[in-house]
């Protein structure tokens, strides 16, 4: 359906050199992008959160393992599987993010909503249960966040039992990201609306998600000490002002004794991708500041031949809003630029089109730069 879009938005990772087992940021993004009323907004949310997760991972020196569940994959069972299959190390971080419809039953005990992962009551998944499930895996730090309504829905039932058990860059900013995400343990549980409230979906994304990202950006780029309570309070304030609904949150965060590894501007180990495609891994290798510079340059032609239909395949780079094309170049020029860049940290592939041989004829992506 959607072209050959690997809407996946793959991910990226930055591993720290010389270490066999890297700390990992496990991201699960669940986005209802096909809904006629909010799909466009959710799609933006999923892109922006993907970018933010990668920026967090890059700044903290974590390997990123981000899974996006959307489009045809959007289902209760896939979300359940993604959560249950998480293999989390004790120093890892888990970031679960949902954008879509939500609601609550009159007899729900939790203040947090149920996520609508389908069209039936059976496909409503309580947010707090996701938090519980992730907590049971004992990550060092976990964030469970939903941008959805928390209003009462007739006919919806409370679900006390979860998911069947058998059955997802500037020096100061980097430091602040680490303070918020890398050097802490505990958890953050957030929903965009208070009990009984709907949530606003703007064309650019959910009011809550945009508010969170705006406040997060202010905090990591500002001069004040990063603090989760302050971040969530300012997010709440902005969301209330803009979206006319009030986020609900719990912050239980403490400084971790296990400091985040230092950022190295690129990895020596190929990052994982969430769709089995090694293109992103190859791109990341091409940007790696730890690789020999001539090796990086020497990889350009083989990569061009392997992944692109021709040296003149179209590559478009979009800015952070994903609306503004900031560069268009041929695949040959793109790879040459990537191979020589000293500040590219990672990518989000927004879409791609391929020919009958599986070679890319058109690539649309967003680039993340390390800020110096």
């Amino acid at each position, binding site marked *: 359906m959607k072209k050959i879009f690997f809407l996946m938005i793959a991910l990226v990772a930055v591993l720290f050199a010389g270490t066999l087992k890297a700390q990992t940021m496990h991201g699960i993004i669940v986005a209802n992008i096909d809904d006629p009323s909010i799909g466009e907004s959710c799609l933006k949310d999923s892109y922006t959160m993907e970018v933010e997760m990668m920026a967090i991972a890059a700044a903290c020196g974590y390997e990123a393992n981000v899974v996006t569940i959307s489009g045809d994959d959007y289902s209760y069972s896939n979300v359940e599987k993604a959560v249950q299959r998480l293999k989390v190390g004790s120093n890892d971080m888990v970031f679960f993010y949902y954008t879509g419809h939500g609601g609550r039953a009159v007899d729900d005990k939790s203040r947090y909503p149920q996520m609508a992962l389908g069209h039936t009551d059976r496909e409503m998944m309580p947010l707090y249960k996701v938090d519980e499930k992730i907590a049971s895996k004992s990550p060092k730090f976990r964030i469970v966040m939903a941008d959805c*309504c928390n209003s009462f829905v007739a006919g919806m039932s409370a679900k006390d039992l979860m998911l069947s058990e058998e059955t997802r860059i500037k020096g100061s900013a980097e430091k602040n990201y680490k303070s918020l995400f890398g050097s802490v343990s505990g958890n953050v549980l957030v929903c965009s609306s208070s009990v009984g409230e709907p949530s606003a979906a703007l064309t650019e994304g959910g009011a809550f998600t945009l508010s969170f990202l705006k406040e997060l950006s202010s905090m990591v780029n500002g001069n004040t000490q990063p603090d989760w309570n302050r971040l969530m309070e300012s997010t709440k304030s902005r969301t209330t002002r803009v979206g006319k609904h009030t986020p609900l949150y719990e912050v239980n965060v403490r400084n971790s004794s296990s400091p985040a590894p230092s950022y190295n501007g690129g990895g020596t180990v190929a990052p994982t991708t969430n769709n089995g495609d090694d293109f992103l891994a190859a791109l990341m290798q091409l940007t790696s500041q730890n690789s020999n510079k001539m090796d990086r340059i020497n990889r350009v032609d083989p990569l061009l031949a392997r992944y692109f239909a021709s040296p003149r395949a179209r590559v478009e780079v979009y800015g952070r809003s994903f609306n503004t094309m900031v560069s268009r170049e041929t695949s040959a020029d793109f790879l040459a630029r990537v191979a020589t860049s000293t500040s590219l940290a990672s990518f989000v592939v927004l879409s791609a089109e391929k020919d009958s041989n599986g070679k890319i004829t058109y690539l649309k992506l967003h680039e993340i730069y390390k800020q*110096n």
Partner: protein
Amino acid sequence: MKKYLLLLFIAFAGTFAVQAQESDNLSEPEIEELRERTIQLITDFQGYLTEIGNKSNSESMKDYYIKSALHLFMGNGDSYYIDGRYHDPVIMEVSSLRNGITTVRPKPMKQYLQNLKRLRYTSVRIEKAETVRISNIYKVGDHYEGTAIFFQYFEGKQGERTVYRDKTKKAVKIYVVREDDDWGTHWNVKFGDIKVEETTAG
């Protein structure tokens, strides 16, 4: 249970949905994203200078970086057309500070990069200093212009002895121009002349 669609964009200045860049004018959000892009490209350019000057890099490697660097400039370092006329190739001003006196000379960018490749020091260190600063980008005729400031340290050594060292503040002219390619027209960021604003002892 539905999210209600609010079409109030105003609250999120800078995140307006923007039209595909088909029009002759850029919206504020588009300009902002192109400014960010400019900073990224200048950062890359500074990295290229480091590698081109680095004596431990091979000739072919330096040539590769030179090619990448020239790509960033109007006309790829050759003469270029804008404002209804052809202009001489972009220049890079170079400065030297001796006995408290600064001498500034313009060099065509291609020549500057070639000279940088073969400076007569045994080692050269060029490092970026401070963050890139960029002005507003404003419309001039059929394109947009702005100015960015970057800083760099330069150190040349003979053996273990530092022969020359300085810190320069340079201003690069920014052009956002419409370019035609196989797929139509689009806005693109290109650099123009780079001028020395200030040179101090490093």
